[in-house]
């Protein structure tokens, strides 16, 4: 069946990309990396650097073996089994995977919910703006969308923080919850977290809303110029069904594809927004790892980011397959 072939192709592409990403990571972190990893490791342990210990460690890490294929194969095996080493600077000696577990959930909740909201609202507004082209709603939405598009996400975050936290005091200035100042539990804790998550969530939601609005609107305008729209009207179909059955169903397809392309940028936005709001997610972790040159953590965050975007793209591909009936026929 066409759908299976389509999805298989997409999964193959995903695996290829993942492979590329892993190889790239390996090259960057194990071939080009500055500094001596053994020396750093010993320093973190608080142990003295002796040639004997260094040699022993070198052997344990497999660094005395040839880069290809031994070190490469070992790297692949370690990564897939989630054995990603220990943090050297940020949380000395803590396993990278354990650091991740505590952070990933926070970031995922933030990104997925805000992105979904942004897409849904942006697309609906775009349909409306494209359908009622030229009205005051369309013109003001166009202008605000352009401005939002031109604004870096962290600038938007800082504006919201200034207004709603520093000046109005409605929201906290950052963080995840009020621990240890207030140690809430249960529902109160949830409310506390939501209170802290509000501003970064709104920031991320608004940051890409403009772009999705413009994309959907543009797609719809393209479709409205096609002859089958005129034909539908000539058949006597009511306007709202012309919009729903003929215009939107076609305009949605390229929009989905284009939205998927912005996932990479959204991930970048998450990093800077988490910095602005000191939100303890993977983004902030990447920043901290960068500052501290904590390579094992850095490596893991990069792989996580790539994997997240790839999975998001796969979901987009699934959505596309669902929306386009021609795929089943291919």
């Amino acid at each position, binding site marked *: 069946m066409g759908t299976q072939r389509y999805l298989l192709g997409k999964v193959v592409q995903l695996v290829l990309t993942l492979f590329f990403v892993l190889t790239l990571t390996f090259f960057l972190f194990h071939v080009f990396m500055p500094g001596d990893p053994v020396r750093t490791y010993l320093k973190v342990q608080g142990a003295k650097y002796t040639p004997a210990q260094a040699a022993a460690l070198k052997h344990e890490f497999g660094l005395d073996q040839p880069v290809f294929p031994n070190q490469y194969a070992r790297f692949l095996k370690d990564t897939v089994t989630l054995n990603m080493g220990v943090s050297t600077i940020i949380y000395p000696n803590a396993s990278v995977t354990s650091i991740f577990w505590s952070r990933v959930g926070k970031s995922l909740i933030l990104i997925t919910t805000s992105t979904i909201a942004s897409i849904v609202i942006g697309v609906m507004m775009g349909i409306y703006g494209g359908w009622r082209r030229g009205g005051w709603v369309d013109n003001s939405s166009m202008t605000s969308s352009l401005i939002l598009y031109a604004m870096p996400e962290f600038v938007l975050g800082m504006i919201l923080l200034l207004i709603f936290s520093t000046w109005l005091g409605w929201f906290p200035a950052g963080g995840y919850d009020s621990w240890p100042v207030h140690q809430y539990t249960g529902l109160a804790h949830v409310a506390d977290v939501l209170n802290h998550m509000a501003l970064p969530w709104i920031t991320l939601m608004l940051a890409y809303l403009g772009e999705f609005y413009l994309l959907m609107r543009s797609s719809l305008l393209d479709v409205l110029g*096609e*002859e*089958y729209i*005129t*034909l*539908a*009207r*000539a*058949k*006597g*179909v*009511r306007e709202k069904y012309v919009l729903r*059955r*003929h215009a939107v*169903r*076609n305009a949605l*397809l390229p929009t989905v594809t284009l939205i998927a392309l912005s996932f990479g940028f959204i991930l970048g936005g998450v990093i800077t927004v988490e910095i602005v709001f000191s939100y303890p997610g993977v983004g902030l972790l990447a920043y901290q790892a960068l500052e501290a040159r904590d390579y094992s953590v850095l490596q893991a965050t990069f792989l996580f980011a790539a994997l997240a975007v790839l999975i998001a793209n796969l979901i987009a591909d699934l959505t596309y397959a669902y929306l*386009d*009936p*021609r795929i089943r*026929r291919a």
Partner: protein
Amino acid sequence: MSVLSVDDLRVTYSTKGGDVPAVRGVSFEIDKGEVLGLAGESGCGKSTIAGAILRLHSPTTKIEGQITLDGKDILDLSPGKLRAARWTGASIVFQGALHALNPVQKIGDQIVEAITVHRMADEREAHVRAGALLEQVGLPPRRIDDYPHELSGGQKQRVMIAMALACNPSLIIADEPTTALDVMVQAQVLKLLRSLQHDLGLAMLFITHDLSVLVEVSDDLAVMYAGKIVEEGPANEVFHTPVHPYTKALAAAFPEIGDDRFRRRPSGLGGDPPDPQQIPSGCPFHPRCAEVTQVCPELVPELWDAGSGRFAACVHATGAPSLQTTNP
């Protein structure tokens, strides 16, 4: 009994660059079972007329005059009644080739939509009827489950025709139905249209720039230039003995195989059709006319009698007022 009566139709588009008068006073009548061919170059306004009959233009376009379809004044209908009249009174066959069919909807569903929108049948009956319609146009009924991209150009055109018949209209407007097709396929589609029109007793308005096609299909023929009809009459007369110089040039540009005249005479018409916003004074054709006279840039011609049932908007028509009376 006239199915469609158009009286002094004027259509003006509003664009950023000002008003564009695409149709400047066109009148004609089509009776039941009759085929009227409408010919002219691109931009003369013929497709605009097609859209005007069913009021498919954007709300900013000004339509004046009178259009009577099946006894109803189209320009006066409320939106609900207009929608009811569409497709049941008159349907359109577009230039099917590119994107006249919804790419993500099965063709059967698109035909069914026409039927159910007018509540002529329920879903199941409509599907059966769609299959029957496909058979009528020479396609196997099982194709109702196909998507447009699975059909060839000619097949898509047949689907368009089947769809046009779905609500038993009195009039079919064929807007360049064969232009984008290969010659062989063109012939097939034309044959189909002719036989359907004849068997079902439909009135048809056939719009194209290809005069030779019209001569085969139409009973009467009208030639348009710069938003007005410049010659009209029985198809054979107009094509074989044209009076208006524009018709002569058009006819010469489409040779008929076997007709001796064409083999020896090179033909072609220099220049371009006029910009609707800058129509030449007097007779709009005078800058390109091979038989232009002194009065042409000053006299706006009307459809004068030109003999054997023809009317031509040209000073060379036999029924045109004498040239002397128009000299100052």
